[in-house]
């Protein structure tokens, strides 16, 4: 991290006019100058959207993953739909999302979309990681496929799912910001970023980006910690 700042400093110091790529000092100064009123409100808006997007994206991913578990034939189809949601550029789906969901929810929808596929693939991979003998155990005591899912597969998948959930964090935030960037919203990092860019305030642009990065980092670390708490067995026998 320190290294990164160092490189940044060196870069901005030496080569480029500071009017376009600010030094770390300028960025920090800009953060202090804008203050809590600015960042508090904008990040709160973005976080709320990213949070909802995260929840929705993950819920849908889990529902589809569960569906695949019950009807394994659907796997190909479900992941193909995942691919579909993930391979279209935002410039293409942005207007559509705005029309379908309304401008206010579009940031949430985009955020959910970016989260969805990562989690879906993580969940599908994880749900296959239960061992044969663990599944047999359920069968012999009269459990059905659904019991296997509940008692074994979900928990066996938990480490993989937690990784997916971790990776989904920056996705969720990015989605929310891009959604805000597209329009229809008054408060949020994406809006502030767009405005700052137009107003030629590179200090603020980079400050906002930095804040975003830090938020992602915190979220990523947080999910990591939760994951470790949730799966204490992962480092134990690990068959």
């Amino acid at each position, binding site marked *: 991290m320190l290294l990164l700042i160092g490189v940044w400093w060196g870069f901005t110091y030496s080569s480029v006019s500071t009017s376009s790529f600010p030094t770390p000092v300028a960025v920090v100064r800009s953060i202090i100058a804008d203050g809590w009123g600015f960042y508090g409100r904008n990040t709160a808006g973005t976080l709320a959207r990213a949070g909802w997007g995260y929840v929705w994206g993950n819920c849908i991913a889990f529902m589809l993953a569960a569906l695949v578990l019950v009807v394994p034939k659907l796997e190909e189809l479900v992941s193909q739909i995942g691919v579909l949601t993930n391979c279209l550029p935002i410039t293409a789906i942005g207007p559509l999302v705005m029309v379908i969901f309304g401008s206010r929810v579009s940031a949430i929808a985009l955020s959910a979309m970016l989260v969805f596929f990562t989690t879906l693939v993580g969940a599908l991979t994880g749900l296959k990681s239960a061992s044969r*003998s*663990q599944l047999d155990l359920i069968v*012999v*005591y009269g459990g059905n496929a659904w019991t296997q899912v509940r008692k074994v597969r979900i928990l066996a998948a938990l480490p993989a799912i937690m990784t997916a959930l971790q990776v989904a964090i920056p996705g969720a935030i990015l989605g929310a910001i891009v959604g805000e960037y597209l329009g229809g919203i008054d408060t949020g990092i994406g809006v502030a970023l767009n405005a700052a860019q137009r107003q030629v305030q590179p200090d603020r642009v980079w400050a906002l980006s930095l804040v975003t990065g830090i938020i992602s980092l915190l979220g990523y670390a947080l999910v990591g910690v939760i994951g470790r708490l949730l799966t204490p067995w992962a480092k134990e026998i*690990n*068959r």
Partner: protein
Amino acid sequence: MTHHPRLDSEETVGSDVLDRGDEADRGVDGIRIVHLDKVFAAGRGQEFQAIRDVNLAAPRGAFVSLIGPSGCGKSTVLRILAGLDRATSGSVMVNGERVEPGHATAGMGIAFQDPALLPWRSVERNIALPLEIQGHKNDAAVRDLIALVGLAGFERSRPGQLSGGMRQRASIARALSVNPRFLLLDEPFGALDDMTRRHLNLELQRIWMQRATTTLMVTHGIAEAVLLSDYVAVMSAHPGHVVTMIPIDIPRPRTVQTMSTDAFHAYVDRLSGMLFSVSGEDRDGKPASDSGRAVQP
């Protein structure tokens, strides 16, 4: 089904157990394995015949042990009996019901060769799992079973925090938790010291006598097999085949003292001899050669 399974055994099976007055409800249809074959796909288009024409019949409520050299197909037979694997041919019935692959036999308890505990569950919750699946909870029973296998104090430990033997004991407790009418045990005491093993042997006998549980146990301990069984089936290898089934005619309940009787020793010696003769021809104790690999087109 009136067809009687052909047994490649010297003895015939049945009447002596049925004579036991206290177990009048036991029928002759406890376990019935007829012409069982299992061929595994062994990769690169090859096939491997693990067992061939296995036949075995035991009355309801009987305790049957299955012994044989390592790799002869004991676990394979057991997994087919449990409905976990599909036989290549042949049929299997348990307590009067036909075993269908993928369908659990009602009232079955099973301990696999590997303990297969769920790593995220505590000992207690691992043992309670079958009850949970079947929708009835019974905390008291679980507690009793934990004490029975000597795991009191470790209720909340996870499998990763247990020793090998402790894991195996948890797996036995789990098999017993459902009050099974049909019990399958695959080398249940292999990782236990003699003391613990003997204790659990006798507890198993007590439980079996109380509940008239039809039981099939795979084991490597000949003494253990004689101590517990009504019948001991001996398998030969490559491909696995039940060569004989010997009724053990020692009165119940058997105790530690039983193990020093002449009758007991006679059975142990006889079975050792048999096992020896199916295991190999070499006097120095060379094991069954696993090299006669049957490759079929």
